[in-house]
């Protein structure tokens, strides 16, 4: 399965969802595929699921999507028991698992290319709706269906290592610029004022 194809399909399904990415090739690919104002391109590994969880808890009526990678989830395995107990039913996590530290440019294997099964870990942590998807045809059904279900979903998407993101220009949106676009989008669509913005 190719990550870019999965992301392309997800991008076509975006309407009023909020989406958080971690730092990896999928951040570059997603920013190329989607200019949605509800995208928060978190520029660090190991933080996306936590930020997405906070958003999902703060806005329980909005669907929140987290795009993560195997390397990033391995940095933040503590998220699994928290999600397993909180069960935010408006959160869907897609972990694009290529089994290597691709960003390092040496592509040494991650634990998931060895004995580690993230789906099983998530399930054991209490996330019942946890699945491994290996084929794009399966992603088109299970992966997309999760967007319309009111249930916490955790999908480990086994993808081939792709270097496509190195051919795509990296996003030139500054983190603060992205944050304010995101927050202003929320203010507009939620018809509210985000408290910390204040007045100059």
């Amino acid at each position, binding site marked *: 399965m190719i990550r870019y194809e999965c992301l392309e399909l997800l991008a076509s399904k975006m309407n009023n969802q909020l989406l958080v990415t971690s730092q990896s090739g999928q951040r570059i690919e997603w920013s190329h595929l989607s200019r949605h104002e509800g995208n928060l391109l978190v520029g660090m590994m*190991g933080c996306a699921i936590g930020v997405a969880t*906070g958003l999902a*808890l*703060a806005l329980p009526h909005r669907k929140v999507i987290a795009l993560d990678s195997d390397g990033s989830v391995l940095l933040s395995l503590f998220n699994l028991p928290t999600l397993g107990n909180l069960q935010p039913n408006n959160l869907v996590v897609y972990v694009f698992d290529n089994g290597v530290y691709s960003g390092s440019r040496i592509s040494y294997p991650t634990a998931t290319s060895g004995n580690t099964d993230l789906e099983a870990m998530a399930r054991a942590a209490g996330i019942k709706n946890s699945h491994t998807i290996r084929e794009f045809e399966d992603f088109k059904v299970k992966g997309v269906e999760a967007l319309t279900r009111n249930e916490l979903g955790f999908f480990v998407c086994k993808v081939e290592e792709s270097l496509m993101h190195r051919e795509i220009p990296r996003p030139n949106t500054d983190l603060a610029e992205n944050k304010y676009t995101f927050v202003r989008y929320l203010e507009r669509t939620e018809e*509210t004022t985000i408290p910390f913005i204040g007045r100059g």
Partner: protein
Amino acid sequence: MKDELAKRLVQGLKNAGIDFVTYLPETRLSQIVPLIRDDPEMTLIAASNEQEAVTIAAGATLGGKQAAVYMENTGIYVSSYSLLTVGKQLGVPLLLIVGYLGGVPDQRNSFLYAIIGKHTIPVLQGMEIGHQIIEDGANLEGRIKDAVRAANALRAPYALLFAGEFSV
């Protein structure tokens, strides 16, 4: 900490607009946890560790909440990555409510926490995270409100380190 001080601390958080708290409990300030849990106007979220507590609180802040993270000062070390990346780099205000164990004003100071306490402020300074030590209840509500205002204005975490009367 006397129950009255715990109640004032939580009321101070509410007065300052805090409506979402993530936490990993510790010994000095843990009386605030049931008070927050039982308050219908506040959301209390247990985290697996402080790094996660910071990221969840940051997400809630971006989603319109005024969020705080309650932790032991050991959690400053654990969460330093999130504090720098999400807190400082992305610029997300958070109030850090920190049990300041092992610092000079910690009334239960022991060799177990002395090194932890000694390095807490230098680490916060290294990350350029604003902070104050609170040793007693004088103007507690005002100091909490000031800290939240500072965090919002700076678009960054701001830490209140509780010791003294709060540690007995």
